[in-house]
């Protein structure tokens, strides 16, 4: 008798919607002439919103499908919403930027959306091969996106470096998966967990090796030190909206799968890697912040700062319990809006070609464009973790989760690090408000789409920062069934 696998196609409706949207955009690119950039962007936005609606419809359904390979628990759904939010804001960031740089090709939206599909699979994955598949579906478009500004040398360099390093890291991941399969005879998370806990004698070294290699593979995407070295070059070289997308989407996706691995598949041996995660967290925060301190280029500074933020998030991974996971989710939401906002301002103030992205270029900005300067300061304050912004609550949540589980020193190091970060974030504010104008002729136009992204981000930063209660509830609900 042939067993019919349990398909349950409805759980991938959101992914299907995104896929159809992406295909439509490609078709428009092929079969229509003339101005189609705006049409494509609007299609992308609609697709993202509809997909978001589909995701929210699955809330509390806890479905699984494709032979338990994919799950749609609230945790995955919350992450999917974060990806979609990131994608939505990225589209808004992109519309004007790509016109300014004259590289408005519809494939762009296709690539963004494809990458989002990968992320969504990654967050739903309940099985190692599927996770690997999700990772690659996410990553391949990212390599292309990094080099999207193909006439620019830096962009090409970024793509190539990212690709080489990415392939290298994927090798570790697959290698790790083979060990796990060898050790347990399965790749399904639930079964791995069962097999491990059914063994009474110690930890199988093969299993541990596999687990570590998998962690390393994903650590590349989330850019933990010392697997981070690609970040500054790629972030600087990629088109700015792509950089924003890099620092929110793939990072969140990496955390989604890392959490699932640590609290589900490898929960029985999770304790043994805490020292490693602890050290990685400290390294990632500290190195990211220290190098960010010395940067003069805003994009590069934000790249290092994103490494540091991955370090803060790592703290929640060390904590590893429900409180840590909810703190991470909250932080990722906050991080998404504030990062998009900061990159939005960078896009707004850059001129064609983005030849000068030095922080000093913002000197005296507050005199000419006070509103832009104030909003940029808001994002900087939030990134630095100063109340009443989202960044503050996020950090507070993470540090308090660390303290509640006894990781006092980790919290202390995190706080010291956020003090260090204040220096380079506030330098932007200082330059804008307290230095004389140097680029006297600087003229900025305020395109609608970009303003939508920035204003949404600003509202988000303040709303999350001042009324976090609803968000607390949301992230707490997304952990149902996981612990």
């Amino acid at each position, binding site marked *: 008798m042939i067993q019919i696998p349990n398909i349950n196609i409805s759980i991938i409706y959101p992914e299907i919607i995104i896929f159809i949207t992406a295909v439509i955009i490609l078709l428009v690119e092929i079969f229509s002439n003339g101005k189609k950039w705006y049409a494509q962007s609007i299609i992308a936005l609609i697709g993202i919103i509809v997909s978001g609606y589909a995701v929210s419809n699955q809330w509390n359904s806890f479905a699984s499908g494709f032979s338990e390979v994919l799950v749609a628990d609230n945790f995955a759904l919350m992450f999917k919403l974060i990806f979609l939010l990131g994608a939505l804001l990225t589209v808004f960031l992109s519309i004007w930027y790509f016109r300014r740089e004259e590289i408005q090709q519809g494939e762009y939206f296709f690539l963004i959306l494809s990458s989002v599909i990968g992320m969504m699979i990654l967050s739903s994955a309940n099985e190692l091969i599927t996770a690997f598949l999700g990772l690659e579906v996410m990553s391949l478009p990212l390599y292309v996106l990094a080099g999207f500004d193909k006439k620019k040398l830096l962009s090409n360099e970024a793509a190539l470096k990212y690709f080489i*390093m990415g392939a290298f890291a994927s090798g570790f991941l697959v290698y790790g998966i083979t060990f796990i399969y060898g050790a347990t005879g399965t790749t399904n998370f639930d079964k791995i967990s069962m097999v491990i806990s059914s063994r009474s004698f110690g930890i199988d070294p093969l299993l541990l090796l596999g687990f570590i290699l998998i962690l390393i593979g994903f650590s590349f995407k989330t850019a933990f030190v*010392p697997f981070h070295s690609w970040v500054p070059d790629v972030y600087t070289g990629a088109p700015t909206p792509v950089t924003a997308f890099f620092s929110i989407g793939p990072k969140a996706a990496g955390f989604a799968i890392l959490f699932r691995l640590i609290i589900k598949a490898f929960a029985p041996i999770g304790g043994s890697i805490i020292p490693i995660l602890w050290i990685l967290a400290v390294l990632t925060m500290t190195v990211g912040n220290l190098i960010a301190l010395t940067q003069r280029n805003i994009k590069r500074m934000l790249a290092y700062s994103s490494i540091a933020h991955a370090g803060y998030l790592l703290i929640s991974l060390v904590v590893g319990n429900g409180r840590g996971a909810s703190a991470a989710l909250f932080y990722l939401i906050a991080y998404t809006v504030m990062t998009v906002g900061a990159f939005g301002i960078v896009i707004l103030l850059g001129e064609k070609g983005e030849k000068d992205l030095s922080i000093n270029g913002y000197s005296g900005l507050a005199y000419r464009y006070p509103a832009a300067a104030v909003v940029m300061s808001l994002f900087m304050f939030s990134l630095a973790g100063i109340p009443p912004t989202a960044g503050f609550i996020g950090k507070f949540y993470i540090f308090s989760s660390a303290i509640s589980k006894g990781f006092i020193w980790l919290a202390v190091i995190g706080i010291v690090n956020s003090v260090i970060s204040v220096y380079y974030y506030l330098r932007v504010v200082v330059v804008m408000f307290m230095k004389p104008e140097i680029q006297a002729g600087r003229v900025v136009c305020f395109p609608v789409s970009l303003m939508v992204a920035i204003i949404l981000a600003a509202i988000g930063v303040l709303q999350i920062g001042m009324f976090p209660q609803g968000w607390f509830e949301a992230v707490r609900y997304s952990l149902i069934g996981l612990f």
Partner: protein
Amino acid sequence: MHGPLWLILAFPLLGFLINGIFGNKFNRVTVSLVACGAVGISFVWSAVLFFRLIALPPESRIYVEKLFDWISAGKFNAAFSFYLDPLSALMILMVSGVGFLIHIYSHGYMGHDESYARYFSFLNLFTFSMLLLVLGANLLVLFVGWEGVGLCSYLLIGFWFTKKSASNAGKKAFIVNRIGDYGFLLGLFLIFVTFGTLNIAQITEQAPRLLASGGILVTIMTLLLFVGATGKSAQIPLYIWLPDAMEGPTPVSALIHAATMVTAGVYMMARMSALYMLAPLTMGIVAAIGALTAIFAATIALTQFDIKRVLAYSTISQLGYMFLACGVGAFGAGIFHLMTHAFFKALLFMGAGSVMHALSNEQDMRYMGGLKKKIPITFWTMLIATLAISGVPGFSGFFSKDEILWESFASPQGNILLWIIGVITAGLTALYMFRLIFMTFYGESRVKSHIEKHIHESPSVMTIPLIALAVLSVIGGYVGIPHLLDGSDRIGRFLEPSFAHFSESAIEGHHSAGTEWLFMIISVIIALTGIYIAYKMYIAKPELPVAFAKKFKGVYTVLYNKYYVDEFYGYTVVKPFIKLSRIMYNIFDRVIIDGSVNLIAYITEWTGEVLKWFQTGYVRHYIVTFMFGVVIILGYFIFR
């Protein structure tokens, strides 16, 4: 009683925001309309609430309105709530009423000032803060108002901040007040630790149960609060800021430094009467400080020539009376005097402002004289106020001051010494006030000749508030006619539920009506004597004061230089403190703190620079770092 109470506060706050943000774009009339309108509406609403409260039976005259939970942290809970009882009802009526008149007056007085909108926005903010102070249902809300009025006082004293003396006076007021606030805050902490709440009604209710009467805890608590009160209400030893505060615009002196803000200390003590009644020792200190301040400031006022400074010292002296009243447990009398004082002292200040207005801002009484005919409305209204403050029978000050004097003797906490000081001060008050009147309005004109021709009565926008306050200065006292004069002391009975009282057993026997008559007559005679001496010295024989000054040169110099208190503080407190600060700055701050901070910053940045070298841009190096990480992690698990 159906609120909402917050409406009273909302309008001045709104006025502050509107004028503060858009004021510079408005013309002056709009600014005035917004500011005066805000306080006017606030006054009307206060009056409505006041009469609604009166209509209720006395035992249900309490209305609490909670706006929102302000702070809720662990055991600490503070709601942003307001409390209307007879005491606060009277206060809001007075604050908004007198405030309204002074706002109108300001429209004329400040008419030519450049920063017109700034002035009115601050004035509105002050009104808001003061109303918050009196309406606050817990001590934290009260404290917000308390600090708010302090801030506005600072801003308005230093309103003409380009003048060095004005900005210095502002700073002095703020710093001295901070000293008082420090005590006040400690008092709040102690109250919170003891009661677990800062809600005034709860404290009042629990105080007799939780605190032993006369116990050390309640004594310290009340003393700390009293320190705050001496700062805000300019009592010894923290009164020194008030005379300097006269650098502010005159309507500000009238509103903040005479009628309202400086009475906050008295109000606060009356509000916390339940605690004070448990601390007889504190009460004794309060009464003594009050009496001492009263006579001390009155003697200084005798020798000053600056018309506003005379009034400033007079204010300090009158506040001393109010503290005396609180100190002997006669909170009702204190608040009654607070009210009448608000009327006549605001009037005196505004009258002084009107005189200055006529004389191109001349403040020195040696360059005045003979103004009676030239500015008649100012003269008559000021005369009424002077009669009131001197305690001439029939005027408001008589009733309130007499009640205080009587209580200072008759209350269980009172004694004859307090009464004697009070009565002498009453005489001095009459003396220096009529000295002011005579020097300003009578005799030969000593006005500088180039000003002489321009002397004119103030416009009606200024005189009408004067007249209104003059009327109040006369009739304001009739709400509190004592039983002795066949009155029913309506204000006393009205305020009664707001205060704690002596137990029946503490009141030993009743003094006979005859004694009361005697005391009253003596105080009236002494006041009249004061007036007579002033007449003798400044009208009949103008050479007398000079002769006196020569004869009692030592005393005169000490008084003229205000007992050298400022100098004393300068040498004993300010100078050593500055010296200490310098040392701290040069050694501790510059070398140790800055040095270590800079060192850490340097090391941090240097580490960053070093780490940056790893970022070569070559993929092969990146792979090496990557592999390094892998090897270390695997090594950890192999060798652990």
